């Protein structure tokens, strides 16, 4: 989580503080569907009996989110953007075992 993701500035505000948006380049998005492996399912299922945090699932979603953001950034780079503003995230569970993570935002040129 550095300030620039592969040279592109990513923020979830409508404007970039201290910068001027000169051109908008449309909506960019990235998504990833991650399934947990069966070993994790069993250990996390056991952990779930006791309640509380399911650490492996937290890690899994963290990795997946990185990947979704990476894809969104790649999309923005292909459009020649320098920043992505107003980023939003959405999560949906496709089935009990697989989660889809979706990141989207507006690609802009900013200076």
């Amino acid at each position, binding site marked *: 989580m550095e*300030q620039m993701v592969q040279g592109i500035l990513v*923020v979830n505000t409508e*404007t970039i*503080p201290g910068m001027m948006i000169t051109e908008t380049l449309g909506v960019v998005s990235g998504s990833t569907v991650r399934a947990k492996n069966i070993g994790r399912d069993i250990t996390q299922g056991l952990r779930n*009996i006791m*309640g*509380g*945090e399911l650490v492996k699932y937290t890690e899994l979603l963290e990795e997946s989110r990185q990947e979704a953001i990476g894809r969104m950034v790649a999309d923005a780079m292909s459009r020649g953007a320098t920043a992505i503003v107003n980023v939003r995230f959405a999560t949906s569970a496709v089935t*009990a075992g697989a989660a889809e993570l979706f990141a989207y935002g507006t690609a802009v040129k900013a200076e």
Partner: protein
Amino acid sequence: MAVGEGTWLVMGLLIALPFLLLALIGILWSVAYPVMLIWAVLFSGKKLDEQIADTNSREVSLRDSLGHDPLTTIDGGYRSDITSSGIVWAGVVFGPSHWHLLIGWFNNLIGGSIDTFQKIVSAGRAEAMQRLRENAIANGWDDVINVRIDTADMAPQGAKSSVKAVEVFAYGTGVKYGN
């Protein structure tokens, strides 16, 4: 022939092996589950209280060291001396114990507010927000603006699943002030 019978026996065992293993896991599970459920009945409430107390104390100590809460939900109207910004996020997957599920089920029969689940979800949310603060500080941001919090169900309705949990995901834009 004796040799032929022996090979048939070995082959039969090899074919049956996965099923035997499956049966063994089933037997172990049926023995282990009640033990773990009793464990959950005895200790899950305490564990939850400890978790809430831990999150709370980390939050208070961070707020004391900074002098203010770094998180705000505003977008726009921010200070003009911001030198850099970038996205920051934190997530946590949090679930009720099976004992709490049972209590919740009984509460459901009576109706009204289910305090158990409210307590669990808000504990998860407080933890996610605290991690967002810690992430932001670790990445060198002074404040986080435009914080949004998402909650997603890890076990969708209708799906047969052993895991009952929600994912709380908090994100915002980290900003750094140049003095």
